[in-house]
Structures are given as C-alpha cells and as structure tokens.
C-alpha cells in the first residue's frame, strides 16, 4: 500500500561523478523492480521521485544524480538522519520466465539492477548490459555482463544502442527491458521491433503528485490516450509509446 514512511539514512556515498547512493532503513517497506519512491526535500515544493535500486530486509538503496536543490539536500544527509519518503509508486516491471536482455543507460541502470536481481532470484536466465558516458560515470560496485562507454574509456567504445543488434543476435532474448534517457529508449525499441522482440521500458518525467491526479507527467500513447508516467508507468510496453 502507498503511504508516507519515516525512514532513517544508513549511508550516503558517492557512486560516480555526479552519482550517489543513499541507503534508507524503513521497516515494512517493500517494492518491486521498476517502482519508485518520492523523497521530501527541505525547501522544495515537490517531492523528488527515484527508482528503487534495491530493497531487501527493510533497507532501500537509491542511486541518484546530482541535479539541483533536492538532490543536493539528499546528498548532504548523514547517517542517522530522518528521511521522509512516500511510495511505492508506479507499476514496476512485469517479469517473464523466458530469457531476457536487460539494458541500463546512465543513472537508468538503477531500476534494472533491481530487475536483474529479481530474475536471478526466480532462476530466469537474463543478461544485463550498461552504457555510460565514460568510466567515471559508472556507479561503483555494480555487476554488469557488458559495459560500453561513449569515449571507450572502459568496455566497448560507443553508445550501448550500437551494440544492440549483436546482443540480440548472440543472446536471442525473448524480451528486452530497459531504462535510460528517452533517446536511448527510443532507439532500443526501434531495434527490438525490427527483430520482433517485446520491450518493457521505464520512463522518466518530472512529477508533482506521484499518484496520477495532477496529470503533470502525462504522455500520449500510440492509441491516442494519455497515460501518466507516475501511475500508469513508469514501466510501459515499448510498443505503446508514441516517440
């Protein structure tokens, strides 16, 4: 059930250039991969939404990018500080029992790492790959099966989408899961549809209410209907998105 939680910060640590991890202890909170929480930040009108990167034994891990007032407030929290967050929001990924390819780009790697863990728990075969700007943009302590960087400073050189066709040919996934910048998701969906592969993608959009009432994060789907990223998403079938 959605509610407001009063959590306790157990750790804040830098993960990469501009990226940070925060761990929050909150009894009774649970979420599925792809769902998000909204954090109350000092001196901000709106809460800040973040995908859950991990949630186990009452400890939530969030990976966030420093962007402004809200994320700076979170970055400066210390171990033992109280943190007010609400959630879990959104629909989350729907898992398949067939072999899947999982793609994360930039900070978008957070929810798909959680997804990878859920696949592993279920014993479903999956492969996770990630694309980043450069080696300094890769969050510390994450395990990926393949990495690409735009400048080639680590892993393969080039955008992750450049390697997608080879990945599809070699791995033959039943479904592709992805999170990242809109332009990357669009290209992933385009390539996947050429191979007739279903996609599930987690979208990002500025939000106000997190529960679908304000309609601030609405997008238009191919069928002409509106959908809110916060409530109807953030995970959508790639085939439904009007790019």
């Amino acid at each position, binding site marked *: 059930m959605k509610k407001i939680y009063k959590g306790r910060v157990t750790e804040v640590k830098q993960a990469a250039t501009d990226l940070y991890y925060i761990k929050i202890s909150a009894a009774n909170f649970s979420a599925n991969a792809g769902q998000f929480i909204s954090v109350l930040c000092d001196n901000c009108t709106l809460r800040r939404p973040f995908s859950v990167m991990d949630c186990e034994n009452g400890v939530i891990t969030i990976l966030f990018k420093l962007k402004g007032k809200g994320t700076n407030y979170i970055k400066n929290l210390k171990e033992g500080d109280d943190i007010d967050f609400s959630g879990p929001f959104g629909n989350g990924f729907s898992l398949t029992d067939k072999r899947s390819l999982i793609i994360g780009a930039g900070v978008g790697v957070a929810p798909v790492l959680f997804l990878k863990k859920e696949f592993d728990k279920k014993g479903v075969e999956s492969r996770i790959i990630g694309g980043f700007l450069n080696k300094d943009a890769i969050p510390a302590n994450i395990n990926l099966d393949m990495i690409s960087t735009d400048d080639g400073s680590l892993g393969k050189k080039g955008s992750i989408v450049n390697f997608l066709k080879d990945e599809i040919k070699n791995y033959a996934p039943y479904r592709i899961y992805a999170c990242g910048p809109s332009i990357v998701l669009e290209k992933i969906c385009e390539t996947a549809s050429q191979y007739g592969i279903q996609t599930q993608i987690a979208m990002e959009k*500025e939000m106000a209410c997190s529960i679908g*009432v304000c309609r601030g994060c*609405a997008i238009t789907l191919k069928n002409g209907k509106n959908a809110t990223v916060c409530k109807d998403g953030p995970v959508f079938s790639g085939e439904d998105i009007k790019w």
Partner: protein
Amino acid sequence: MVDLSVNLNGLILKNPILTASGTYGYADEYDDFLSVKNIGAIVTKAISLEPRSGNTGRRIMETDAGMINSIGLENMGIKAFLENVLPKLEEERISYIVNIAGATFDEYIELGKICENSRIRAIELNLSCPNVHAGCLEFGTDEGSLYSLVNAVRNVYSGKLIAKLTPNVTDITKIAIAAQNAGADLISAINTVKASGVRISYVRGKFYQERINGGLSGMGIKPVALRAVSSISEAVNIPIIGMGGISSLNDIFEFISVGADAFQIGTANFTHPTIAEDLVNQLAEFIEYNGFASYEELKNKIREDIKNE
C-alpha cells in the same frame, strides 16, 4: 467532538477544509493515505462537456516557492464523470463539489443543466483557467462577461453556485461584485497566477532554454491570495473560500483574518498527501485545547481581536 461545521450561505460542510480542483483528482487516489470522507469537501478536477486530452509538451515546473502548471484541463468529460465517478463518491460518502469548465458560454449553461438534473448540490465555476486559450479566461477577466455567464448558469442551476476567481485582473473587487450580483452563492479565490518558468542550461558552448507558461501555485502565491481575499471580503457579503499556498494551521488563521470562511488546500496535497485530514485534526485540537465551542466561534474571535487591535 468539536463542532467544525460551516454554513456557507446554505452550503453546509462538516468542516471548512476543502481540497482544490486539479490537486485531488476524483479523490480515489488518496484512499491509501487518509480517509477522504473526513475532509469538508473535495473539489473535483475541472470537468468539461466533452473529454479533453489537455496540453502537450511540458506541463509542470517547480519554481523557487511553488510550481507552475499547464495541464490544459485534461479530464474525462461530464458524461464519464456522472457514470463512473459520481456513484463511487456517493457510495463512499465523500462530500464533493463539482468544478466545471466550459469552452464556450453555451457549454457552461449545458454543464449547469446537467448538474441540475443530476442533483449535484454544489458546483464551482472555473472562470479563470490560465492554460486554455479559448473559453474560461475571458469570462473571468471581464466583469460584464462574468456577470452574464454566472447569471445564465444561475438560471438553470438551483444548487450552490461558487464562482472561482482569477487573480490575473486589474481589480478583483469588480469581478467579485459582478459574481455576487449575478447570483453566485460563494466566491472561491484565488486560481493560479499567470507565470513563466524558465530554466537555462549551458552545454558544450551553447545555451538552451526550457520554458513553461502557465499558472503558479504553492506557497509563493500566498501573499497574492491574502490580498485578493481581503479585497473581495470588503466588497461582497457572500462567503469566501480562500486558497493559495495554504499548508498549515497558521496559514488558515491568516486567511480567516482577511475574510475567508473556508479554505482549499491545493499544491500542498502533492507534497503532503495527508495534509487535508491533518489540518482538520489540527484545527479540532486547537479549538478544543483553547476552549472554543466551535470553528465559528474561533473564526469570530480571530476577526474580533484583530478589529480591536
């Protein structure tokens, strides 16, 4: 149990805390957070004659002390509302006010007739949406047009009629007087303040602008709202539902002191989804702890004390 009830020109509510149109949807999404039936009334998202898909592009932007929205009245239309939403509100005993927005003069009349036939006990006329080019804005900014419109709806609708006013006018008292003369039972004020949100970024040697033109809400507009409510209360004698940046009991006292009789909570619902019920409880506690008999007594006490200062 403390008596928080209010009689707003015949509109009787169990307490003076309402939620503002556009911030509460049709109430269902707040179920997990609180008991919606404990709120004085929810004002529905604006409902038009036909469904509207709203504006494309960026719809919201946070500002230094609030937010700007340009949703464009996305809604399911009155037919779907009556069929799918109204029965649930009735069943769950949620007190509600229907906010209606016409694209034309005739649409307001039609909506008024439909609400009359559906025995809706109170409607709020959205006379001031800043995000729709044709329609409601012009009615809200010209006292002659507003008079004709409110009067025409009055003639087809016998329930409680609330005129929601925009602050984006030269003299809000003229608009308020026109609403009263046309037969409005109450005034609610203020709608959002016309504003632009701009963000500039500098990437690889080039400047980029992100921009939204829309309505500003949240704590940044509270001083604007207090001034408007104050002016309106000096000009008319019908009750006023005050709104604009309310998020605490003290904000409510400020609005009472300038003439508001009831209150709508807007943007604060997004940040604190339990706030409407929290404020009902805090108001009851304050009244009880300080030995007042009722909300009405507290309201009168605030105004008397200030008058005698």
